[in-house]
Each structure stands twice: as C-alpha cells, then as structure tokens.
C-alpha cells in the first residue's frame, strides 16, 4: 500500500538556510552567493571588488573550495575577514558548512558577506545556503550558450556578471546572443560586463550597495 508523503526533499536544508538568513537579518547583514564555473574569474573579481566595496560597507568573504586555502590567501590581501570553507570533495556548499564559517566571522562588525561557492555550474545552484541574493557568473571563454545549458543557476540569479570581456575579440562569443540566452531563462536580473583589465564597473558596486541598503 502507498502512504502519501508530499514533503520537499530539501526541507531540512531549507530550514537551516532560513535560520541562517533570519540570524543575518537580525544583525542587518546581507549575504551574497557568488556562483560560476571553475576558472570563470570569481576570485579575481573579488580581489578587485573588495578594496573598493570596503570603502562603502564592512565586508567579509567565505571562500568555498573542495580543498586548499589558496583562494582565502589571495582574498586576505584585500584586508577583509576571510574564512576558507573546504568541502573535502563535495561539489557545492550547504548551510551546515556556511554556519561553521559564520561562527568564525566578527558578525557584529559586518554589513555584507560574500560567499564564493565551489566552481561548478550545476550543483551549487541546487542548494540554498541562507543567502539573500545570488550572483551568477560566466566568462566569454566559456561560451554564450552557458545560460541555456545551466538554466537553474542563471535563471535564479539576482544579478549576472559576464567576465573576461577583454578577451571577447579572441573568441566566437556572441554578446547579443548571450544576452538573449540569459533573458530566455531570466527576465529580470541585471547583467554586468567585467574584465580583470578594466576598472571595476561602478554600476555593479551600486547594485551590491542598494541590495545591502534594502535591509538597513
């Protein structure tokens, strides 16, 4: 015989994520979940973003990787608190690991936390980690088809960054097609263009600041 259940598979993860969000809300902290493929330039963007954003808000970073502390070492040079989260082989971050990272941060002295998820376009998008906003990232060297091939990540993003724009002329990346592909899965998210060789796009900084202000 059958017993009706009708329970969401991720209910316990969502409960943990909601608890994290509520505790951050109480402290007036906004958390951003930065997701993108391995090598798309997430850490490089943070290295450039952090010194500038630190002039506007008090910021910290949780660095998610399967192993090593290499990314945390890079980020620490920006003089913001950073905690390396090692998943020991797991392909994504979950709320339980985020909580361990948050326990090590000076939460009373923070306005914004940026979580750099494990480099992967599939699994991280499946898990709510207690963030307030999701940022999806893809680079021109990965191809303009990525939003269609990974619709969950790009469909749920609150902002999308296209990186390595300085390499555009060396690839067959079609920026207009990429924008159309993004709009097929995501009608609303603002799209920001970036390059490690450029000055940081102030409109992206404004977006982060406005999102931060919505909880202040």
């Amino acid at each position, binding site marked *: *015989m*059958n*017993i*009706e*259940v*009708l*329970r*969401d*598979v*991720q*209910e*316990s*993860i969502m409960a943990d994520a909601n608890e994290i969000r509520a505790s951050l809300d109480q402290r007036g902290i906004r958390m951003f979940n930065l997701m993108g493929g391995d090598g798309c330039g997430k850490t490089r963007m943070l290295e450039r973003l952090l010194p500038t954003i630190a002039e506007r808000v008090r910021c910290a970073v949780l660095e998610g990787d399967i192993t090593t502390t290499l990314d945390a070492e890079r980020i620490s040079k920006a003089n913001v608190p950073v905690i390396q989260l090692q998943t020991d082989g*797991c*392909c*994504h971050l*979950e709320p339980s690991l985020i909580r361990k990272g948050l326990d090590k941060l000076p939460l009373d002295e923070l306005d914004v936390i940026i979580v750099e998820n494990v480099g992967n376009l*599939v*699994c991280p*998008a*499946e*898990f709510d980690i207690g963030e307030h906003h999701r940022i999806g990232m893809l680079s021109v060297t990965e191809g303009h088809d990525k939003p*269609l091939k*990974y*619709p*969950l990540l790009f*469909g749920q993003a609150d902002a999308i960054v296209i990186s390595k724009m300085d390499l555009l002329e060396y690839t067959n990346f079609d920026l207009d097609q990429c924008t*159309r*592909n993004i709009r*097929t*899965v995501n*009608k609303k998210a603002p799209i920001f263009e970036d390059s490690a060789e450029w000055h940081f796009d102030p409109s992206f900084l404004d977006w982060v600041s406005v999102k931060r202000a919505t909880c202040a």
Partner: protein
Amino acid sequence: MHEFSVARSICNIAIEEARRHCVERVTGICVEVGVMRQVVPELLRTAFDIAAKETILQGAKLEIHDVPVTIKCHDCGQFAASATLQVQCVHCGSTNIEINGGNELMVSSIRVAEEVGHEH
C-alpha cells in the same frame, strides 16, 4: 554529484515517515523531480541504493517522476508543456519564451508491504 545529498535527504524523509506510521520495511519511494532540477535519474538511483543500505529502505525501488516545464511564447502567445528543457517555442520557433515551473523536488509517497499501524 549533488545526487548523493539529494538521496540522503530522500532517505531521511522516507525513514521518518515509515517510523511515524510504524512501518518496518519500505518497498518503494516515489519522488517528483522537475526538469529544471538537473538531477540525473541513474545517478540518483545509484546514490539512493548506497544511502539506503542497512536501513529499512534497503532494496526499495526509487520511482522518479519527471515534472515538465511550461513554456510560454511571447511572440505567438501559445503555451507548451515539455519534459525536456526547450529553448525555442515548439509552435513558432521563437526564442522569446518564458520558462515556468519544473523546480519540484519532492517525496510524494512511500510504498510499504504491510498494513499501516497507528501513528505515534
């Protein structure tokens, strides 16, 4: 390979429900999986078999039901349900479409061999 995390959560829910109904062996679990969830059925079954070992779920059959997405075309105005993720309108070929639904990931029921006892 997030299928292992998904399988672990499915097992936790199924075991909880079985205990709540005083059931000692589960023979099947039905899950609804939306097209957008990027869950690979074969991997989920393998992960489930591993997670279910030495529990009351061992040997249970995992039945995976796909939940389609709904596609609305902004050019011709027609709707279509699709069991795979489409990037074009199936009626007019336009890419000016809106994809809705397909985010389900739910344990819908468990199947048990015996009569259900009293709930705790």
